[in-house]
């Protein structure tokens, strides 16, 4: 199988890896880079458990090739906390009971992280639409919506504190 060298910035670190050209990003992250936060729930882009952030966009890593990330900035749930401090979306999911089995959580967090940059002050309907590419079988979404609202407030407070 043909292999390619892929360079990317992964969670803030420049990396260079030899990958099979057909290898999916989600397998690259999980099996080659040992970052098992992104999960595989459907292989068809429906469930969003594999959501990561590539160059400022939410991407489903189960239908994206690793070689497509050459030269990209890739962030996974493992890169969300900075300097040992949880990101506001992580804190909020914990505080609002926005997770149960935890399988969808990395994808939900990565989508919420990006969504709140796209829309820092969303309504409930906007949150529901913004997260509609991510499925959860446990929570019924109600506490996830609360968590995203709470994270929005946290991020705004943080911003006004640093302004």
């Amino acid at each position: 199988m043909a292999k390619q060298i892929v360079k990317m910035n992964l969670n803030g670190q420049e990396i260079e890896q030899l990958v099979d050209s057909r290898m999916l990003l989600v397998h690259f992250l999980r099996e080659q880079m040992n970052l098992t936060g992104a999960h595989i729930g459907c292989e068809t882009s429906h469930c969003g458990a594999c959501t990561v952030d590539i160059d400022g966009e939410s991407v489903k890593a189960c239908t994206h090739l690793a070689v497509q990330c050459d030269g990209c900035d890739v962030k996974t749930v493992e890169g969300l906390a900075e300097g040992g401090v949880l990101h506001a979306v992580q804190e909020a999911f914990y505080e609002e009971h926005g997770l149960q089995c935890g399988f969808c959580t990395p994808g939900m967090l990565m989508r919420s992280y990006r969504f709140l940059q796209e829309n820092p002050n969303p309504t409930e309907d906007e949150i529901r639409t913004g997260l509609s590419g991510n499925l959860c079988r446990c929570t019924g979404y109600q506490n996830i919506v609360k968590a995203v609202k709470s994270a929005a407030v946290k991020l705004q407070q943080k911003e006004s504190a640093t302004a």
Partner: protein
Amino acid sequence: MNAPVKTPEERKAELQGMGDSRLRKEDARFIQGKGQYCDDIKLPGMLHMDIVRSPIAHGRIKKINKDPAMAIPGVHAVLTADDLKPLNLHWMPTLAGDVAAVLADEKVHFQMQEVAIVIADDRYIAADAVEAVEVEYEELPVVIDPYKALEPNAPVLREDLAGKTEGAHGARDHHNHIFTWEAGDKSAADAAFANAPVTVSQHMHYPRVHPCPLETCGCVASFDPIKGELTTWMTSQAPHVVRTVVSMLSGVPESKVRIISPDIGGGFGNKVGVYPGYVCAIVSSIVLGRPVKWSEDRVENISTTAFARDYHMDGHLAATEDGKILGLKVDVIADHGAFDACADPTKFPAGLFHICSGSYDIAAAHCSVKGVYTNKAPGGVAYRCSFRVTEAVYLIERMVDVLAQKLNMDKAEIRRKNFIRKEQFPYTSAFGFEYDSGDYHTALEKVLDAVDYKALRAEQEQKRNDPTCPTLMGIGLVTFTEVVGAGPTKMCDILGVGMFDSCEIRIHPTGSAIARMGTITQGQGHQTTYAQIIASELGIPSEVIQVEEGDTSTAPYGLGTYGSRSTPVAGAAIAMAARKIHAKAKKIAAHLLEVSEGDLDWEIDRFKVRGNDEQFKTMADIAFAAYQQPPEGLEPGLEAVHYYDPPNFTYPFGIYLCVVDIDKGTGESSIRRFYALDDCGTRINPMIIDGQIHGGLTEGFAVAMGQQMPFDEQGNLLGNTLMDYFLPTAVETPTWETDHTVTPSPHHPIGAKGVAESPHVGSIPTFTSAVVDAFAHLGVTHIDMPHTSYRIWKKLKEEGVQL
């Protein structure tokens, strides 16, 4: 300076015991991507297994050519039933007393059945090899409809059972017949119907659905040929039972089999069974002497591992003219697929379906369930419910609505009239269940007041009279009782092992503790809630109590987590183990304080000398003393194990009300309001209870409004990806309102009844009740699920509803 003395209230709050909405201990790892699920496990030298599956639903295997697959570099083995035969592993026993093919033995019985396995260096090579295996089939006639399966000339599905007129549950009267199981008193029920002024009947189909947890099934099997030990990480809701089964099948002594359920990405009944994939991965690891991983994909998950429901039900009620129910009769045709692989307690091939007299005082009742083979995948698991309780609740709640319509009575009024009354508990139903406690009337009135039921009915009346109104409004009401917490070992076993559960608690010298359990969390939050029970019982802060589950080498034997049994059974085991420790702690405290045990009072976290608040020993003091200076005659240490055999099931109940608005033009439905009152007895963590209820209601919404597994005449499953199989997103999912009453279980050590499945069980008929109610003024008494916009639109056309 001394720290200020804490008040009892402050000390109690610090424990974060029962009743506290304590945040979850498990979350720290999940929010940082550090959960450890089965597919995250990677062992040195690990190979990957993939499965060759049948494209047809019924046929004979003429030939399998492995050579093209074996020629692919990186492929280690291709195994078929013929390779498993010498090990006698080509068939395996099911939990329902039948056998199931591990790999298809000469015949395939359903589409996607396991035909061969390939083991390769990585999952990509394994997938290539699956494509390369050549299998020739001779197609046979397919039977999808269970009624047609019972026709005299129907094709014979299970040739391996030829001549067997006796099954695991009695006589078989047809080659596709599995069992007929009855409960209640037929002659009493017949007599009630013969004399009744009013009778109603309704046929209904509860569609085949799939639990579809977000994580599919999988395992990593690792056999150590030198030690002869087998360790398997597995997506299992019942690791101890799996260990017993694996030992029985493989011949490896149970002491050398270790099953570990790591973090599980949702189960909902899908992860109770033992599937061919697990068995094949274990065999492969034993044969090759290397670790082997199997990870199911979503299509495989929906197509082959344990579906739920598929009950074709005929319900009949007999009643007086003023709506007092006199009798209930139910006949069910149960489509079990190609192998009877339901996961029910052994004695109950239809699970606890005979809870179908519901919350009502019905003097005479009878039910009969006939299990049938068809060319579909095996299963029939409890999808977020106790065994077949969802089907039972759906049946009775629909029937009560049908009767109310016939008598022109209000849904709430007919329920009030027939409820088991508070003073009747403990109440023995016509089917023999002893309901532990309940107060249905109080709960019903609470809900009707909360939603202003009268105003809703008035609004509906006004809308029905307004031809310009663009919507039909429906009000659904369900007042259900569940039976959970299986179960008393005198009635319930799995493969002969009684359905007790267990807990082992150790208090360390410095006052922290570890509890190991026979259950396994799949998102329910056991690591949080179990600690709360211990905190309240023993006065040790939840924060320093570790809860471990899922590793059969360290946890005491238990039957696992399904059927809402964790709190009713394992939760009781915790309390009982804690009480053993409490009793020993009291002896140590008396010794330390130089008083008799009779002079001590327990207060939150300490034993006090009666009448003297200054003289006390906290549990932390006692723990240290237990390891340092136990009183004479008492062994050192502070730990206990308890295996809890419940005296009875528990009977949580709930009152659910739903308001739906249906667009007359498009058939689209909108859930305007859903009010769920649950009574699960004592509440351990209200935050987690609410979360469980939100999740269960959402799953119920999915089942009622969209989930189905349709098959064509050739046995092709027409929806086996998340493109086709309905899992609601945040957009479709309604907003839920929750409420509660508290009626503790009198026989449970802490009065808890279990909650996580009630919202699934109770909500499904509520949605149907609401949708049917929207059409009730047109004489419609029942509409089968799922209530998709297209199906509702067809109903609108059928009934001539004009926009």
